[in-house]
């Protein structure tokens, strides 16, 4: 370390900056805490959902084979869909649970309670699931 430099008015000047040891984040940082692992799972749940819709588009493309040629996806499709459903439900659960935290809705002097927002979100999910399932089933009958 350099000796302190004195200024004309007598006050000591700044010494050279000490050497520091930098921090390097390991590639496996996300394994270090349960919260990190859950974060990764939450984020990567977007992949199976996207994959499932790609499979749906495969079915849409098969429409071009005409009435006699069309084959809906079957067999392995169920197993893949179960995995995708788990991912979709995990996304739903984590995202709707956080809706109350993300949205601050002023109400009077305070805010709408987070629990209320979350309950409304899950209520909406139940209603929409019933509606969409109903439409698909009615459309298939």
């Amino acid at each position, binding site marked *: 370390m350099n000796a302190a430099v004195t200024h004309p008015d007598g006050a000591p000047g700044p010494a050279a900056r000490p050497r520091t040891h930098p921090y390097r*984040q390991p590639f496996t940082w996300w394994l270090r805490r349960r919260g990190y692992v859950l974060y990764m799972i939450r984020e990567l749940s977007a992949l199976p959902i996207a994959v499932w819709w790609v499979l749906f588009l495969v079915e*849409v493309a098969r429409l071009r084979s005409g009435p006699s040629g069309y084959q809906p996806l079957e067999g392995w499709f169920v197993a893949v*869909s179960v995995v995708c459903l788990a991912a979709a439900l995990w996304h739903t659960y984590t995202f*709707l649970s956080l809706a109350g935290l993300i949205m601050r809705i002023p109400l009077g002097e305070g805010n709408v309670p987070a629990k209320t927002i979350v309950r409304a979100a899950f209520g909406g999910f139940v209603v929409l*699931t019933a509606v969409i*399932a109903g439409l698909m*089933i009615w459309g*298939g009958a």
Partner: protein
Amino acid sequence: MSTKETTGEAGYAPRPGPNRLQGLLWAGFANAAVLIALVAPAHILIQGVLAPLGLAPSFDRKYSTFASALSDPLVKIYLLVVIAASFYLFGHRTRYVIHELGVHGKLAVGLAMYGVAAAGTAVAAYLLFTLP
């Protein structure tokens, strides 16, 4: 990573906002995430699990019902929006995960992931809107 190394002699001074691009990208993500959270499980449950197992009918099991449903422009638009949201959700989240696993080059990673999402959406639009 001391102050002087990351910020230079001027001190900490990132560009002030509002960064409308990032804001828009996040708002798109938040809305896409809500939409997918609300509707994706229903589709995957009925179309992907119950119907192929024969436990419930579904509009995509037969040519007649599937083609009939997809001839409705509202159905096409709804499906395109949901699919676009799914691909965008994937692109946005994967962009951050890849970056956090140490891949630098924010711009390149962003362009790649949003590009993948856009490409997928374009394919979906083509398939849905050019049916015989």
